[in-house]
């Protein structure tokens, strides 16, 4: 009885949800049928009716010396991006929030938000010039008497170049979200803290951060779905064979194998593998978020 009444009161919401739901159904669920080609020796003419080969593609994949490392590379790069993608914007948002002049705050806010709008294709061209061994950054290092750093051509440094350049490009967006959360906080709390004689530092650690926590956790959970997306367009535009060891991620591997080398079935097998791992990671992080932060959705 209660349930029925609820539905009656809420049918408008369900209606509004419908287009989004349909889009997800059509573009995300129905194409999953295509996963079948991971178990076939796919040829374009026969399509989905290609000969069935069972797990042969996966066997081939695990025989490739270049496959398993793409998973560790992906996790390494993605998790660091995730972590720094929260730490950096929160820090910057806190700093901007402490500014007295709202004009200056807005100026910085705009400035750091701009790189977010440039595509990685353009950004990669810029970064290649800036980070070349005879580029701007290394010229500065040289004038300080430091040895040049091979940002894009050394497999030790390459993942860090990816992580930091991604954080640099994207932190403006996160900063805005956190700033919005900060402005929404109850000023009465700060006023009473002032009366008690709390310092700025104490106010940040005892009031601001705890109040910001729900937003941080929400942002974290939302980005967990992307934990195996280490950033195809960034890495594809900046990597080269010498950094495959540490920089080749699942998506770039799928692209090279599946599209450039036309091994459609194997490419799909990698994609399926990624999805399965992704699903497990999401489930685990959901449980963790519930246990550790008491945050749950369903």
């Amino acid at each position, binding site marked *: 009885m209660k349930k029925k009444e609820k539905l009656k009161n809420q049918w408008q919401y369900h209606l509004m949800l419908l287009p989004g739901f349909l889009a997800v159904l059509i573009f995300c669920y129905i194409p999953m049928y295509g996963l079948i080609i991971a178990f076939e020796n796919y040829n374009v003419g026969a399509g989905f009716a290609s000969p069935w080969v069972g797990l042969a593609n996966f066997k081939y994949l695990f025989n490739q010396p270049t496959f398993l490392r793409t998973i560790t590379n992906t996790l390494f790069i993605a998790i660091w991006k995730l972590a720094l993608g929260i730490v950096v914007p929160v820090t910057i948002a806190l700093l901007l929030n402490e500014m007295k002049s709202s004009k200056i705050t807005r100026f910085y806010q705009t400035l750091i938000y701009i790189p977010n709008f440039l595509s990685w294709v353009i950004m990669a061209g810029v970064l290649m010039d800036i980070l070349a061994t005879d580029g701007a950054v290394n010229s500065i290092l040289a004038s300080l008497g430091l040895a040049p750093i*091979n940002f894009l051509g050394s497999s030790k440094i390459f993942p860090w170049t990816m992580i930091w350049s991604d954080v640099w490009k994207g932190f403006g967006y996160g900063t805005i979200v956190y700033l919005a959360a900060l402005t929404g906080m109850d000023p009465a709390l700060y006023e009473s803290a002032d009366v008690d004689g709390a310092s700025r530092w104490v106010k940040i650690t005892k009031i601001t951060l705890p109040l910001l926590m729900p937003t941080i956790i929400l942002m974290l959970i939302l980005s967990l*779905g992307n934990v195996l997306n280490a950033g195809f367009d960034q890495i594809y535009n900046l990597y080269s064979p010498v950094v495959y060891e540490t920089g080749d991620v699942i998506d770039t591997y799928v692209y090279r194998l599946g599209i450039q080398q036309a091994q459609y079935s194997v490419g799909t097998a990698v*994609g399926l593998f990624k999805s399965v791992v*992704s*699903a497990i990671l999401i489930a685990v992080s959901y449980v963790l978020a519930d246990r550790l932060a008491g945050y749950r959705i369903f």
Partner: protein
Amino acid sequence: MKAKRILAVLTAAVMGLGIVACGGSGSSGASSGAGRVEPPEDIWAPYEETVTVTVVGEENSGTAFQGDDDYQHNPWYQAYKDRFNIDLQNVWVSNDYTTKLNLSIADGDLPDVFHVNSSQLTQLHAAGMIMNLDEVFEKYASDTLKGYRKDNADTWATGEFDGSLYGIPQMSYGPIDQFQYVWIRQDWMQECGFDEPKTMDDVLTIAKTFAEKYGGYGIAENQNLDNLMRTALAYGAHPGIWVKQADGTLGYGTIQPEMKTAVAEYAKWYKDGILKSDFVTMDNDKMFQSLINGECGLVFFAQWFGYNPVPDLIANQGPEAIFYPYEIPSETGSPIMGSVTFNNNGYVVINKNCVNPEAVMKIVNFFPYMMDDAVEAGETHEFICSLYDNNYPNIVFPTRVINPMTDYNQYVQVKAAVDKWLAGEEVDTADLGKNVSKFNSCVAWNTSQDVNGVGDWLQQGNDRSAYGISKKYLDDGQYVKDAMWGAPTATLQASGSTLNDILIEGFTKIIVGEKDIDYFDEIVQQWKTAGGDQATQEINETYGK
């Protein structure tokens, strides 16, 4: 609020299930809008009403378009229209043809006629997406084209399945275009007083001196190690082809001990600063850019270096900065052996759904006609030159079929004519046929330093040209033939480039010093387990006899 959260999380979850699916089954890609038009009896006669044929093209930076010309509007396409009343339409033109075509194949969205490589040919035949050409070839191929088939039966056999022709082999300009050279910048060479290098030590001395004196680096290379594969010839390696090993079986050239020597040398060069410290991040265009900027004066490269980047280089650095090719020397000074592969640039195939395959045959006939028969047929010089100048033959790359003796004969003829002209004698250009275009550009380069002529001059205009060196290799039998004299075997077709990737990556690590040279053996082992052993076995079964 709760609904919103659920949707947000649902979206996030679905994003995790990213890019797996690959939609679309092979829907009809036949794009002939106008429908079937009956062809005229005479294969050279025009259609009564205009026939539209679709094609896809490859960008080639060597093509120097004049005026308003482009890939769609040019003398070749105009000739198809004028001669046959055929309207050839580009669906797309890409600088990454193979990848783009793979996407189109996966999509099932293919034009009427297009160029494929051998693994795409196998795939499309298995998929039943391309036409059996037996009938249309028999009826509409020109005698010249049929002659090619007779003279190059082993090549044409690779385009057949169960005795039926599916892919017309495009062949190539001949083995003369397959050799490698060391290209050296002339103004620097003269200033430093160097002669032609006789040993690899000479090459290194030149490279080091250039780097010290002109403040760049010694030898140019790109991230795919394309030039290492050329340099390796100096150490007796034959990367990329299959060779007879000491035990009599066939093995892959890129994993032989000689290759290990070449990689070790390369690593030494990198350590000594002869290679650019960040060459591993440069693609071929970036490498060219660096040469154009005057950072380097020595590069191991193929015969077409004069077409790209030399014209830009001269525009930037002046005509004295021209590079000339030299024979790659060995360590000791004894002559090296070049590599010659089974000579086929790919196949012309016709979409199964194409309604006017005869029109495609007319287009395919036209290139051999212009190449071999145009002069006898009385075509005018202006017409011939309009098709051949400025590297315009590149435009029709997807549909052209080449007589493999073309470039050898052409070199002999053009060089003789240029020599005569340089000696101040009269040259009767009517004798030259289509080669008049090459002759004219060599003359233009020598009289007015026209950069559009420098490519032909460096490729075949004189003794010191690339073909001059190649001809010597060919005439003296100074080359090793690829043991895989035919189509690649199944494993190589499916995963040949994946296998090569493993080697390239491993070599790069050794070269930049991340691993020592013993890692070479480990890489070879990886290559073997990843499918190399199987490929070797197949090659020995098919080609080992």
